[in-house]
């Protein structure tokens, strides 16, 4: 057997885990590891400009590929800078391993230079964390970390590595474990057959059914099974913000996404349904609105890998704990076998009703002869990229417009921070995607507020040649905050106005990229075409959009699913 130092074992473990890229930033406690990185060329390291961005890069990659991302940082400030990124991944169940340097084990507890209790600090925002207590444990700990991060309900795992664990002078036998044994961690591998049967019987008897699909369908790689089941049953399907792309948006059975800024038809259909099949979704407060008024006539079947997601906010009539792909497959088989068929007459009158709702609103917005509307920018981008780009976003109105008006037919293409709502996510996430999918179009649809939260990464893009397209829907304000102030605080715009914005064009150029400003409506299409034609350039497109636009529909606070504002003046 080979003898390796702790640092070399760590890097070898990453190689044996099949890790191609890691994202990170060096510092004292991680220097043995960085030296080991230098002495090999299989694992490639991307040097970011702020550790938060390293985590979002790993996260963007994980969301696009379904594979765990990897981050390497130093102790203390390096580690604490990752926290927002880790919390972002945690809220959206993204698989990720974050390797953190730590002061030497002999110094822990002494307030040593750059010492932070990362195990304690990260505890509430990780799926699990592990610390290395002897160098020889490293291969097993790394194997465990990836296993825990990517199985069951995925999530981030932090590994804390005291500096003496990676010291170059001590060597140990290296073998990468093939299997992990964890007696206390056994995620479900299939759903309960009896429950599945019961659910299928209810589905076939339903008169106004709806399928409500969440991010779990994408994480569980079950889009194919979901699509097949939905088509077989002929039911309407809606999905959450996190579930965008799990069912093709251009399909007739798709009602768009639901919840606070969901479509009129999706929210209406949910409210009036008699059966909800929830798949990998968690009845989050941005979906349900007031829980006590939630869908009064509906019985609920809830499939989720995480038992704690079931009956947490809304009681399920038929809970099914299991991986969504396996459960949907079994459901489909039962539906095919069954002598019962969905009630065609009931379904057709249900569809008639839904189509009326669809026609009533249809995601209309007012256009203007001279002001550029953010919605039309997104619609145009969707058209110009054939709806096939990876789109990352930040948080605010631009995020909602991107999600509403870009039509995703594939999973893993819409990449946003849904659970934590982290401004600053979009650019680094786009970079993580572009690095791993260099031939695909990668758009970051952002706002002038959000982009400034990780703008330093333009420098990383230059170093590694990451030609993403940044679409800055510049409304010169923290638009989503301003919208809430318009609606709830009589338009008192307390600190939601962005004064002294930088010249984004010069800024992009200073970092070695191309900047394009669009402020006239007639320039929009030709300039966007030019931008998209610059395949190998990062282009920062600063688009001056309507400063007063609001996102609609918007659910009325503390109401039920169907209580919505449809424009500044229409309420239903």
């Amino acid at each position, binding site marked *: 057997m080979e003898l390796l130092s702790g640092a070399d074992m760590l890097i070898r473990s990453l190689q044996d885990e099949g890790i191609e890229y890691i994202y990170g930033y060096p510092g004292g406690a991680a220097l043995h590891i960085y030296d080991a990185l230098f002495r090999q060329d299989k694992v490639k390291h991307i040097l970011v400009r702020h550790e938060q961005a390293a985590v979002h890069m790993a996260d963007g990659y994980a969301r696009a590929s379904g594979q765990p991302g990897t981050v390497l940082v130093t102790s203390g400030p390096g580690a604490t800078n990752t926290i927002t990124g880790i919390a972002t991944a945690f809220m959206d169940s993204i698989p990720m391993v974050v390797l953190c340097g730590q002061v030497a084990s002999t110094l822990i507890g002494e307030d040593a230079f750059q010492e932070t209790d990362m*195990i*304690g600090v990260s*505890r*509430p925002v990780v*799926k*699990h*964390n592990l*610390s290395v207590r002897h160098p020889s444990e490293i291969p097993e700990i790394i194997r465990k970390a990836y296993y*825990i991060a990517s199985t069951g309900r995925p999530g981030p795992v932090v590994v804390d590595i005291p500096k003496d664990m990676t010291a170059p002078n001590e060597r140990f036998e290296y073998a990468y474990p093939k299997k992990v044994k*964890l*007696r*206390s*961690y056994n995620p479900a591998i299939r759903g309960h057959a009896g429950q599945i049967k019961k659910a299928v019987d209810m589905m076939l008897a339903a008169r106004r059914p709806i399928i409500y699909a969440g991010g779990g369908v994408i994480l569980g790689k079950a889009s194919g099974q979901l699509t097949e089941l939905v088509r077989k049953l002929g039911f309407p399907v809606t999905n959450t913000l996190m579930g965008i792309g799990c069912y093709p948006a251009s399909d007739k059975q798709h009602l768009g996404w639901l919840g606070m800024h969901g479509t009129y038809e999706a929210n209406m259909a949910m409210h009036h349904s008699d059966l909800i099949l929830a798949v990998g979704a968690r009845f989050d407060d941005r979906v349900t609105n007031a829980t006590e008024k939630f869908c009064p006539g509906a019985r609920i079947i809830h499939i989720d890998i*995480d*038992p*704690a997601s079931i*009956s*947490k906010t809304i009681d399920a009539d038929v809970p099914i704990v299991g991986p969504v792909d396996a459960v949907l497959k079994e459901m489909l088989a039962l539906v095919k076998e069954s002598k019962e068929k969905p009630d065609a007459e009931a379904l057709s009158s249900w569809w008639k009703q839904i189509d009326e709702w669809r026609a009533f609103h249809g995601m209309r917005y007012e256009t203007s002869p001279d002001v550029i509307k953010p919605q039309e920018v997104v619609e145009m981008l969707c058209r110009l990229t054939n709806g096939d780009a990876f789109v990352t976003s930040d948080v605010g109105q631009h995020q909602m417009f991107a999600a509403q008006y870009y039509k995703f037919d594939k999973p893993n293409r819409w990449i946003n921070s849904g659970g934590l709502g982290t401004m600053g996510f979009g650019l680094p996430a786009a970079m993580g995607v572009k690095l791993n999918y260099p031939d695909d179009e990668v758009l970051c649809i952002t706002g002038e507020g959000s982009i400034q939260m990780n703008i330093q990464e333009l420098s990383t893009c230059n170093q590694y040649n990451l030609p993403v397209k940044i679409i800055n829907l510049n409304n010169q304000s923290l638009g989503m905050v301003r919208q809430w102030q318009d609606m709830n605080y009589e338009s008192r715009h307390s600190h939601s106005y962005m004064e002294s914005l930088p010249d984004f064009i010069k800024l992009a150029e200073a970092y070695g990229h191309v900047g394009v400003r669009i402020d006239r409506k007639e320039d929009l299409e030709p300039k966007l075409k030019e931008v998209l034609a610059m395949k190998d350039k990062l282009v920062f497109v600063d688009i001056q959009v309507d400063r007063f636009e609001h996102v609609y529909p918007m659910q009325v606070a503390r109401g039920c699913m169907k209580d919505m504002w449809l424009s500044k003046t229409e309420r239903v």
Partner: protein
Amino acid sequence: MRRIISVLLENEPGALSRVVGLFSQRNYNIETLTVAPTEDETLSRLTVTTSGSDRVIEQITKQLNKLVEVVKLVDLTEGPHIERELMLVKLKATGSQRAEIKRTVDIFRGQIVDVTSSVYTVQLAGDSDKLDGFIQAIGTSGVLEVVRSGVSGIARGEKVLSL
């Protein structure tokens, strides 16, 4: 309703802080908490008493189960069980009080485990109500110091919580 949840936990550094952290992070309350290694030194046994609606209790057990280091758990209050808590209490004991205290300790089946000219130290085990009852019977004015272990519990009969 008050519940007693018994947990088998990997005996590893940091595992206990995850359990405690979960309760504060999710706004669940802890009334008592006891923990010690078991006959299998790789495992700790932890007993927590808490209260909440059925939905909250269901969430507590599910969220605890989700912790990677939690091996198994049971809500003892769902079935017949035995619960015990240990109390050590220091009482002012002078003159006629001494006989009076001795009588009360006997009634509660406690023991006087340490004596000075003015103080008795009493040891008492039982369920939490019994310990409360003893303090009430003695009267708080004579109590100098109380230390309670928190509840430990075990199911009655054949049922065991083990690997």
